């Protein structure tokens, strides 16, 4: 076993006993990056030098007995999290040269916990996509099959983790951007409750939906990372001053007597039979672990996609107005006056999908259309939230597939936005309701592509999700496989 293949907790055991050092772990990770990055293309910016320096410092700290929650552990960041002094692009040409003078709150927390930051991972431009193909910096490939997409928008973070190019990573999830790539890359991905993890320094896509969360190799690592990044942030008004439990206490507790809701609306036509079979198998596994499964209904499910594609673009068109070529980022030099500078900078600074969503959002907020679109969508959103409240009155967690299909081929859906949007059909409702959701690996297709199962819980019930996922993980005894990262 190479060091880069291990989990956070396995490495922490070795660091504590002195069996290895952060310098060795970091060198192992960068060695792996050197071997596979040219094929996977998970990173936009590597932070090799600072990472090695951080590893040295971590080793000094360990020698002194000062071991933080993540001391010496190499972690990758989605390039949507601002890093002081390190280029932060959000996958866009318009920010290709932007160097923030501040760290995102989560980055501060990772640093304070002693993490080694490996670099900034690739993503769909402004997190708008489900395949990481819309990045200005080129597509990321799925380590399990390099002809396929890793999911998105946090595809760089999931692919880097699956390929061993980091020990854990952070992503952001606006409509499934953590859980969908986690499922397609065979790793664990958690989207916390809205307000649980600070958004300060997270470049906004849709402010009322965005949330940062961890990608890890197993559920225990997820708990470790959540312990570090969760918590109230006075710099964010929508942050919630809810106490953060020690998420590790929920590991291995079992789910005897739990009620699991299976929403009938989530087992639909068009779902891949292999995915459906794998997810139905998880139901048997959790029942074996002592849980009772019942059918629940989330009657407004069919409106989720429509609501999402009004609310998210509306917020996005406003959030992205600041990229105007005036203060930072890309500016077209061809403009002869102010209006031309705006138009040309934005026309060549943004890619097609971003422009499409800016136009949708601008339309939805226009005078005369606001009531029919944005206002109506907000009302339906409240109904979607109520669906979940009612469902959670009957069950402890909800179980659904994470995605309707396994990873699709690069280029397969780029010409058909609607097909692309449908790959988030099972994850979007979670963001609209603001509740937490986790995707956990639940098997493979015959072709060897990972499949994920999604568990959902009520607001601030991340502990319950971790308990459930940990019990599932233990009971499922999934065969350990490693991606090959070759085969184009």
């Amino acid at each position: 076993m190479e060091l880069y293949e291990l989990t956070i907790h396995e490495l922490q055991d070795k660091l504590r006993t002195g069996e290895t050092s952060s310098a060795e772990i970091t060198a192992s990770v960068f060695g792996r990056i050197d071997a596979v990055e040219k094929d996977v293309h998970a990173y936009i910016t590597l932070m090799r030098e600072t990472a090695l320096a951080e590893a040295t410092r971590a080793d000094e700290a360990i020698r002194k007995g000062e071991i933080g929650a993540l001391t010496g552990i190499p972690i990758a960041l989605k390039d949507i999290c601002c890093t002081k002094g390190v280029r932060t692009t959000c996958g866009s040409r318009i920010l290709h040269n932007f160097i923030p003078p501040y760290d995102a709150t989560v980055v501060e927390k990772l640093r304070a916990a002693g993490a080694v930051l490996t670099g900034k991972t690739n993503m769909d431009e402004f997190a708008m996509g489900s395949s990481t193909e819309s990045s200005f910096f080129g597509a990321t490939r799925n380590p399990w099959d390099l002809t396929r997409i890793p999911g998105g928008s946090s595809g760089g973070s999931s692919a880097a983790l699956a390929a061993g190019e980091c020990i854990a990573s952070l992503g952001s999830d606006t409509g499934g951007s953590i859980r969908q790539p986690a499922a397609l890359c065979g790793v664990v991905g958690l989207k916390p409750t809205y307000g649980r993890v600070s958004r300060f320094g997270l470049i906004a896509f849709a402010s009322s939906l965005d949330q940062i969360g961890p990608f890890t190799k197993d559920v225990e690592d997820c708990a470790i990372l959540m312990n570090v990044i969760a918590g109230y942030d006075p710099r964010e008004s929508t942050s919630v001053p809810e106490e953060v439990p020690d998420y590790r206490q929920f590991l291995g507790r079992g789910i005897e007597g739990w009620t699991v809701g299976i929403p009938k609306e989530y087992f639909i036509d068009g779902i891949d039979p292999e995915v459906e079979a794998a997810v139905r198998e998880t139901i048997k596994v959790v029942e074996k672990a002592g849980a009772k499964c019942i059918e629940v209904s989330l009657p407004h499910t069919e409106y989720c996609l429509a609501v999402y594609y009004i609310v998210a673009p509306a917020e996005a068109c406003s959030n992205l107005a600041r990229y105007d070529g005036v203060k930072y980022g890309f500016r077209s030099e061809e403009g002869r006056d102010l209006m031309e500078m705006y138009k040309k900078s934005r026309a060549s600074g943004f890619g097609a999908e971003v422009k499409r969503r800016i136009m949708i959002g601008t339309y939805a907020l226009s005078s005369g259309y606001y009531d029919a679109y944005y206002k109506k969508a907000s009302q339906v959103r409240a109904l979607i939230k109520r669906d979940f409240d009612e469902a959670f009155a009957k069950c402890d967690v909800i179980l659904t597939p994470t995605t309707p299909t396994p990873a699709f081929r690069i280029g397969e859906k780029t010409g058909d936005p609607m097909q692309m949007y449908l790959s988030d059909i099972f994850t979007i409702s979670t963001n609209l309701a603001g509740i937490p959701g986790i995707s956990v690996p639940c098997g493979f297709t015959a072709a060897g592509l990972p499949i994920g199962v999604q568990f959902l819980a009520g607001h601030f019930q991340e502990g319950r999700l971790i308990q459930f996922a940990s019990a599932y993980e233990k009971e499922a005894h999934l065969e350990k496989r490693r991606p090959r990262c070759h085969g184009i």
Partner: protein
Amino acid sequence: MEFEPVIGLEIHAQLLTDTKIFCGCSAKFGAAPNTHTCPVCLGMPGVLPVLNRKVVEFMIKMALATNCAVNRECNFARKNYFYPDLPKGYQISQYALPPAEHGWVDVEFDGRQKRIGITRIHMEEDAGKLMHDEHNPASYVDLNRTGVPLIEIVSEPDIRSAEEAAAYLRRLHEILVYLEICDGNMEEGSFRCDANISLRPRGTEPFGTRAELKNMNSFRNVQRALEYEIKRQQYVLEGGGQVVQETRLWDDTAGVTHSMRGKEEAHDYRYFPDPDLVPIVIDDAWIEEVRKAQPELPLEKRERFMRAYQIPAYDAGVLTTSRALADYYEEVVRLCGEPKIAANWVMGDILRFLNEEKRDIRECPIAPASLAGMIRLIQEGTINGKMAKEVSEAMYKSGKTPQAIIEEKGLVQITDEGALSETIAEIIGKNPAQVEQYRGGKDKVFGFFVGQAMKATQGKANPQMINDLLKKMLAG
């Protein structure tokens, strides 16, 4: 046809908070460009606004002072438009749910009183400032002002003349300054006014098409711009034309308004609730807390002055034009116990000295105790009115106490009856012709004797005693 103007004013007042509305930067005016900035007010990627609660408190103060109902819950909205002085590409303002509405103030003009309705008050952030290089084809932007808190106060279309508009504007200005939430400086832009104006045939209900007037940076300009615009619209309507709904800029030098037609027009601001900010909840306890700390407002003070000090409405008005002046006056009264005499001195010499040098009452070199001391000296007969004039002038110049000045100048009133009788006897002896005239019924000559007596005593005689003695002695 006779037309009636229908005017509504929109006032933007910069609030005197220490820090900006959504970040910790200083909100002070006058710093070097872009020094009062941070990633939040610069609109950098990923940063988030956090509301300064002082802004809400100041808004509540204004709402209470203008009889508005304060809503228990309101929210912020984004007003979206592109301009280089607006780093986020949207202004955080309030739209569908204002924090305060349905208020009014009473204004006086032409000796009449009128109630002007206030539609709403809301909070928002200010934009930055563009600076254009005269020599190069370049523009610069100073973002110090970006994020400085503003309240916008929107009046009902209740105003019917330019004078009325000016009176309303003065009233709001006075209240804001009294509340110490705005410095009221129109030239520096901390108190700004836009106007909506239309005409309708007198006696009819429906409003005509309105124009919005901007760029009026003094009370006088607001009045002049409205007067001009009333004439312009009247001319258009009488000529059978139609007023165009547009924004017009006041040109101070030319004394006219110009259409601002073009790209600034027809904005669709695409307002929607700002998802980065949570709804603001204003509970009764908060409103009560603000109400308790609310200072006495100009109108209340005026009425109290008239009642407590028995001074005329005019005097009470002048003495309450600012809180500092009213405080000064009250301190003088407290120390000398002579409200009417104190009013005369403050409104007379004190304000004249200050106005000549364009100074504020807070910079007055004469301490209230000195003025009160001088008034007491007059009342006790130590000095007379003429000497007091000299004393007040000297106090203003030197800042010394009246006692010190009197000693320095030897300004003590002669009240020795014997000495004064001697002087008068001498004058009577020297002017037999005038005595003859007086005794023959020519009362006017009395003034001549007073003058002679004052001259003989170098103005130091007690005038009342001179009067009494002259009457007695001339009567023979």
